[in-house]
């Protein structure tokens, strides 16, 4: 079922700014579809240890055995046999941008990645199709023991530390797509911040799909040791094709005692990408974990960043923004699981549905027995821009302890004719008025972002609003 070309555009400007593609070149591309032979090819190319090869094969069996989820979004058109599971774009990863093959570098130039790196990042990584093509950490941080690399390199260079945490937070049998990722994972980021080290600029990784029908399965593992601090940001885009692509990542985060970690996502896939991602963090004693999760693109996103509050004093924050336009379904939200007493969490979700788009908030609050003095606050606001668009809320609560303090608030509002008229009477066009109202609506989350990303977010929202007014 190929959707019409005009239908797959998110906003008028997506196609030229992000939806472009360059000629596909690869040094290796697996056949369409997935079997144990493909797994061996991936493992061979990566020349990885046997334990990882076995891990992959086991995960594939789990993937094949697990049924397709029937809750959440519509996955009935997802055809696993159409997908290329591994596409290696270049022979080697670059340590400088000059080492990156020309077309690939041009793509990242166009997306402004090297420029951002210069301006405001402590480190930067870039993945193209299945492999990381560039990774760089500024010397200052490297000399203080920070490790920031792609996950394949980490497996080669820091096997001990990787092996200690890998798949302990999201095991392969967690869900069908976590199993898929475990079987075919490639690329992704590995970060280790040593005790007490505070990385004060963001570390960024950018994920780009270029070829048709490609699956991207990055595997990210981030470890924030005791008293350390860091902020990791991921961005992503893809060309607008009329055939589907698949992005199924697994992200695991560990925040140790007194650590403070923030993970920001600006998801801007083209609207032919299925985005099915498992993100989970464990927060230990007196630590703070924050997910800032913005979903603007994709055809269907199913993603619920979660935080396990493992020890007293841990705090978790999930800020989620979802914008669903034409032919888009954002099934997003968050999960907080209170495993220990004296822990607190906060979920703020803001969704915008327009142009027939659908957004759903799906959230879980779980408090285990004997977890006294737990504070949870959930707030979800939905803004519906027109009568064709839809918003749903699925808040799940599993509270097995009496001595807890839980707040839940949900609002749904339709964009007000009065607001529009008021702004237009001051000279704003309908489009400008719409985008101003939407920017204002998500401002409580955008203001949490570093300035550069806040600007980017507002620009993306504007882009998405363009073309939404007929």
């Amino acid at each position: 079922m190929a959707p019409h070309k005009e239908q797959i555009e998110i906003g008028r400007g997506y196609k030229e700014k992000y939806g472009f593609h360059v000629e596909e070149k690869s040094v290796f591309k697996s056949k369409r579809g997935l079997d144990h032979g493909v797994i061996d090819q991936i493992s061979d190319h990566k020349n990885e240890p046997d334990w990882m090869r076995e891990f992959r094969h086991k995960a594939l069996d789990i993937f094949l055995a697990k049924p397709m989820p029937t809750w959440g979004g519509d996955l009935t058109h997802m055809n696993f046999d159409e997908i290329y599971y591994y596409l290696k774009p270049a022979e080697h990863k670059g340590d400088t941008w000059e080492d990156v093959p020309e077309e690939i570098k041009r793509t990242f130039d166009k997306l402004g990645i090297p420029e951002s790196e210069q301006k405001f990042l402590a480190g930067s990584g870039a993945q193209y199709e299945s492999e990381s093509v560039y990774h760089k950490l500024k010397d200052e941080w490297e000399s203080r023991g920070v490790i920031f690399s792609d996950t394949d390199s980490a497996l080669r260079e820091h096997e001990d530390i990787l092996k200690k945490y890998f798949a302990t937070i999201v095991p392969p049998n967690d869900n069908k797509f976590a199993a898929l990722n475990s079987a075919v994972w490639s690329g992704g980021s590995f970060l280790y911040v040593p005790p007490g080290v505070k990385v004060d600029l963001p570390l960024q990784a950018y994920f780009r799909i270029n070829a048709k029908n490609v699956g991207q399965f990055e595997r990210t593992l981030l470890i924030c040791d005791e008293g350390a601090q860091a902020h990791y940001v991921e961005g992503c885009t893809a060309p607008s094709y009329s055939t589907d692509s698949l992005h199924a990542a697994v992200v695991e985060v560990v925040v140790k005692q007194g650590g403070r970690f923030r993970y920001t996502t600006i998801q801007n896939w083209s609207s032919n990408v299925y985005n099915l991602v498992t993100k989970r963090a464990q927060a230990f004693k007196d630590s703070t974990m924050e997910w800032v999760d913005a979903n603007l693109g994709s055809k269907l996103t199913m993603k619920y960043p979660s935080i396990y509050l493992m020890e007293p004093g841990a705090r978790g924050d999930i800020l989620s923004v979802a914008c669903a336009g034409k032919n888009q379904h954002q099934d997003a939200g968050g999960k907080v699981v209170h495993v220990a007493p004296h822990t607190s969490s906060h979920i703020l979700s803001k969704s915008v549905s327009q142009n027939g788009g659908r957004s759903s908030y799906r959230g879980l609050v779980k408090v285990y027995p004997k977890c006294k003095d737990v504070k949870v606050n959930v707030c979800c606001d939905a803004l519906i821009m027109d009568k064709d668009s839809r918003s749903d809320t699925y808040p799940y609560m599993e509270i097995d302890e009496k001595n807890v303090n839980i707040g839940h608030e949900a609002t749904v509002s339709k964009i007000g004719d009065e607001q529009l008229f008021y702004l237009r009477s001051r000279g704003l066009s309908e489009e400008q008025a719409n985008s101003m109202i939407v920017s204002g609506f998500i401002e409580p989350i955008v203001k949490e972002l570093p300035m550069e990303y806040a600007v980017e977010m507002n620009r993306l929202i504007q882009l998405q609003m363009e073309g939404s007014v007929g």
Partner: protein
Amino acid sequence: MGKELLKIENLHIRVEENEIIQGLDLTVREGEVHAVMGPNGSGKSTLAYTLMGRPGYEITKGSVCFDGQDIREMEPEERAQAGLFLSFQYPIAIPGVTVGHFLMTALAALSEKGNGRYKEIRKTFRKDIKKYMEGLKIDPAFAQRYLNDGFSGGEKKRMEILQLLTLQPKLAIMDETDSGLDIDALKVVSQGVSEYLVQNPKASALVITHYQRILNHLKPHFVHILSKGKIISSGGPELAIKLENEGYRAFGIEDREPGPQPEGGIHGTT
């Protein structure tokens, strides 16, 4: 006599199947202040919204010319561009959008369309806004607050005047700017409107009100009494005096809501 700025002839307005304005004529010339007075439900806001182009307010008959242009088919933003301004009876909150950002965006939108007047205003915006806020006794911190979000009634009205002063329109339609203001706030707000009129000698104002007390400050040249969608009486300031002394009943109008006794008569001290 100044040039005709707004010319309304035999205007009929329909809102959701109801004909609210039923044959209204009004001419406002440059530099004139007109008051339109009427009880609740007489159609004052309907007239104001329609002039500003609010969707759903349908002109079924008659004509509206502004500054020589037929504006009936123009979008609200095009009317703003042409120099029309409406101070809302109930200003709308836009959460998450700061006053400063909103004003700059509005000015940018207006000047983008190539109107030189707004480009000039934009050049000195930062300096002017401080001055205007001071005059309106608005705390400078309000520039960073979200537009009308959680503002008191009086703060919202002052915010409308701040926008009036910023945008310097040719015609200001003030819809019950006086309602809900105490004496001091009314004075501050009226001074703001006066300042705009003094700065722009050709500019005009259409002051829509239920009570005459704002007219103590904004001396109108003409007063019109609106009842059930029609102007039933027009004249000079003496009409407002008659209304103050004898009430709407003197005009044969049933005013369901007499409201509080207005403070300070038209002969008052101001």
